[in-house]
């Protein structure tokens, strides 16, 4: 059933070269309501030259429901970061299909992926990835800038997001004037501001001491309770333990998928 319109869609894309019209036909295939993420046989292969190909992901298939709190766990080199980049639309799979919130995103153009990243995904990175020259408020506003929200509305929404992470009073500070925990909370506010479908956190506590790490995990817990879908990528067991489902990844494959709570 799945390979009907998609297959022809892909051929059309090849036939038309790189000029791809906004993909409407691909989107018409919608997984069941409630499914936020669905991947089917995702592969990511890096060609290292000399006919050596490294498979970072080899055939990953899983589904994720709306409102889930999932941890993707695995040692370094297991492919969990690659998986997270694919889920976050920062990268495209070599082959396989990926639906996000009902859209087949694995075959979208760069600009369409940018649109998805902007609207559907909120990133929280290990190294925070805040713009050092911009204030906390402006950092939080950035996703709204790229969705074309006018200044006044932007300010309101950004303040609202900062309120959720208890940082309104420090919104005019620049990242280097904030503590690590505060920086990560700014990053979380930035991830929240556009009301994304999923929040994608890549080792969010990796650069924090354990007390601050717990504090940040508390913030994620609150977000989960208020209905957000969260995907956490980590290699630490006690961090993964906060999630309600843990997907273990090893050698580019899903090793184990367990529901914890």
């Amino acid at each position, binding site marked *: *059933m799945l390979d009907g319109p998609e297959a022809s869609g892909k051929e059309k894309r090849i036939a038309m070269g790189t000029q791809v019209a*906004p993909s*409407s036909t691909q*989107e*018409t*295939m*919608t*997984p*069941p*309501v409630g499914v936020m993420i669905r991947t089917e046989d995702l592969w990511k292969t890096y060609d290292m030259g000399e006919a050596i190909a490294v498979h970072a992901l080899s055939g990953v298939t899983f589904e994720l429901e709306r409102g889930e709190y999932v941890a993707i766990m695995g040692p370094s080199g297991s492919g969990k970061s690659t998986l997270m*980049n694919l889920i*976050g639309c*920062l*990268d495209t799979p070599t082959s396989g299909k990926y639906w996000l919130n009902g859209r087949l995103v694995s075959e979208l153009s*760069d*600009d369409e992926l*940018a*649109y998805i*990243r*902007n*609207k559907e995904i909120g*990133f929280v*990175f290990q*190294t925070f*990835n*805040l*713009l*050092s*020259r911009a204030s906390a408020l402006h950092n939080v506003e*950035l*996703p709204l*800038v*790229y*969705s*074309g*929200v*006018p*200044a006044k509305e932007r300010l309101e929404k950004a303040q609202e997001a900062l309120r959720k992470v208890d940082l309104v009073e420090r919104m005019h500070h620049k990242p280097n004037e904030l503590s690590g925990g505060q920086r990560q909370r700014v990053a979380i506010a*930035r991830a929240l501001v*556009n009301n994304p479908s999923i929040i994608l956190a890549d080792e969010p506590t990796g650069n924090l001491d354990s007390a601050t790490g717990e504090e940040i995990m508390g913030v994620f817990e609150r977000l989960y309770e208020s209905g957000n879908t969260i995907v956490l990528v980590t290699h630490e067991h006690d961090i993964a333990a906060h999630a309600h489902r843990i997907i273990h990844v090893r050698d580019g494959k899903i090793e184990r998928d367990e529901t914890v709570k």
Partner: protein
Amino acid sequence: MAVLSQPQVLLHKLRLGAGRGTGFWVTSREAFWIALEALRAHKLRSFLTLLGVVIATTTLIVVMSVINGMNLYIADHIANLGANVFILYQWDWTTSGEAWLKAQHRNKAIRIEDFEFLRDNISGYKNIGAEAGLGGTEVKYKGHLMYEVNLSAETPNMIDIGQAKVESGRYINDTDYAHESMVCFIGQDLVDEFFSSLDPIGKEINVNGIPFRVIGVAARIGTTFGQSQDKFVQIPLTTFRKVFMARPELAVNVQAWDAQQMMVLEDAVRALMRARRHIPYKEDDNFGINASDTIMSLWHQLTASIFAVTVGIVAVFMVVGGIVIMNIMLASVTERTHEIGIRKSLGARRRDILMQFIIEASVMALAGGAAGVVLSLLISKIVNIFFTSSVPLSAVLVGLFLSTGVGLFFGIYPASKAANLEPIEALRTEA
């Protein structure tokens, strides 16, 4: 699996389009602030980067201003011989090259008989006057001596034709002319030198050792290209012929009532002069008829070549300036790869990043252009003290547009390089 209906798909597309329409201004404004911030954050670097553009803009505007200043000056002082005046003279002022060499052999001076002949044989003119000159005259009053004074001999009606205006006293009149009176009309420089606290009228000055009584003072004319136009003594033409030179070479000034009549009179004068000098119809005039437009056309030829050279120089400066901007923008893209990654991860599209860097390059170049404008205004002020310069608005606009355009053009390559970065690669680059 549910299938989106056609209207739903359409709606989605519409929403996408609408968001991008308003988004253009939002992201452009963001890009503008980033650009200003970048300029502010790296003041020295920006200054050095923009030096080329600053110099180019300054050069362009200063040259345009000086040419404009000279244009205004010519229009005001030189070409404006008085309304509807043309001058019959031995030479055509615009002749050059071979024609000039030929004219040197052929052309004959205009003499008093020519003047009288024309005065009596053409009709309808408003005024016809004649003047002769003698440069490098020495003028003495009591102990004071002045060199390099222009002595000119005039018919009484030259006050109505030429540039000089009476400030006090009177001009040479018909009686002075008829009686070859030893009177003179002097310029302001002589007043400054000799009569700073005295009334010059009625005083006697020595011109090349011959005493003349001052009957009037001219209003100040000013300077042309740094040379005073007020250093003159005017005496009746008849007196001049008696005392200094019996057969002077004349410039005959003919004033018409209007521009149309001027052309008719020019033709009449040419025809009469050719007949009088028996010039065969095939041959060129051996005299010159000069009007404001002759001078203006000569002048425009000259400025056009000055301007062409300037355009060349400015183009070279601009290209060099542009390449420096491109270089610094490329460095900036490398330096900010991580930032680009962050922006892309938050939903910046290629065109957003492209715009950001193009706007940054343009704003930078525009800032250079603006600095050039300020600098050229200052230089123009200084030049105007000893020469002439007037900044035309068009020069400022051209300077600003050109510099912005250079930034835009040379910003495209670095910007597209930034825009085409893969988000994940960019994000992995260490900040």
